[in-house]
């Protein structure tokens, strides 16, 4: 089976790698690019722990082959903070106690990134639908919803309270 040479941008940095076609995107991210913030939970497309952005859209990276990202741009949790400054979503999760063990958090945040990009002012129901493909075993979701609302407010330039 022939290997493929692919080029992709990860968090702004260009990479050229040679991969087996069956290599999953999440394995490329974790084991080749060493970006271990992206987690593997279920490995069956259900939990969302592996969620990243592919050309700005949230996808479950355990359900793509790395070759499908050829010529594309991916963003992982490591790509959010800029100049030592947390992204509003990261700040929201921190301030609102949006995590306990933190396993689901990178996926939750990446999914919420696309949600807020499409809908800067989501209702609570829209947030809950928006993260419905991301499972959290710890928090009971209420504080995650608050964290997303915190980030939405912050990104709109409004005053924020946890």
């Amino acid at each position, binding site marked *: 089976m022939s290997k*493929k040479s692919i080029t992709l941008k990860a968090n702004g940095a260009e990479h050229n790698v040679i991969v087996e076609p*069956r290599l999953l995107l999440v394995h490329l991210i974790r084991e080749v690019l060493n970006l271990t913030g992206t987690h593997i939970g279920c490995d069956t497309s259900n939990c*969302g722990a592996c969620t990243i952005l592919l050309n700005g859209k949230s996808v479950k990276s355990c*359900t*793509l082959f790395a070759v*499908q990202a050829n010529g594309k741009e991916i963003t992982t949790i490591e790509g959010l903070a800029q100049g030592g400054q947390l992204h509003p979503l990261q700040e929201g999760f921190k301030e609102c106690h949006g995590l306990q063990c933190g396993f689901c958090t990178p996926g939750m945040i990446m*999914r919420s990134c696309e949600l807020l990009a499409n809908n800067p002012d989501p209702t609570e129901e829209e947030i809950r639908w928006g993260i*419905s493909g991301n499972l959290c075993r710890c928090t009971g979701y209420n504080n995650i919803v608050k964290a997303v609302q915190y980030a939405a407010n912050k990104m709109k330039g409004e005053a924020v309270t946890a």
Partner: protein
Amino acid sequence: MIAQSFDYESPGTIAEAISLLQKYGDEAKILSGGHSLIPMMKLRFARPGYVIDINNIPGLSYIKEEDGYLKIGALTRESEIEHSGLLKSKYPIFGDVSKLIADPSVRNMGTIGGNLAHGDAANDHPAAMLALRAEIVATGEGDQQRVIPIDEFFQGFFATALKPDEILTEIRIPIPPEGSGGAYHKLERKVGDYATAGVAVQLMLDYGVCTYIGIGLTNVSALPLRASRSEEILLGKTLTDDLINESAQYASEDCSPSTDLRGSEEYKRAMVKELLIRMVHRAMDRAVAE
């Protein structure tokens, strides 16, 4: 979980993709959204030697009205269907369906063409396509197009009328006349679950008389099922509660669900009946509101 090794091709044209299908025959699989294929490959239920990714072929993603048809390109993602202005305003049944398919990240990848080509009675688009009497456009050698009526498309367990060297390229739906409305709902245990039961209804009312009716059922038989007796009893009649009840009773008798973790056979039949009643009412409301 790691799939069995395979060779990966990503042709830039349909003609190239078809010639690869011809070259590799049974060993090849088309990759669209990959959200049925890749899970099956990881579990090694599917072990293709060649994966032919059609995502780099331009022109397969669109939603438009043309020549009396609503036309949807095979590579159109669920999320595009869910958020399409045209579909929201004129064909809300599509929003009903897409919103209940998996979750937002899966919908960013999954395509309508893949959803139908997969030939799974648990998938949600087939029932709606039966209700709308869609036509499937398959493209084969020499860019030849073949139009397959939806009633001939689903042929068995994961089997469709597509030939091994054909690609599903478009879904066509005759634009419903004024006074039409449609609705879909599926009962699911949680987001991302396949249907316990699902019912799609498309109808047209002319001064209260039902002049078109299509009813499709999800995941209550081996193939996506048209509820023929339920349709026949409604066609040409004023839709009274008694008549709708009788129609729903027929569907609950004519499907053949099996008892599983999602519920007993009896429960699923009861849900088909209830969902059918509700979807007829929702479709009637939408037909009037149009």
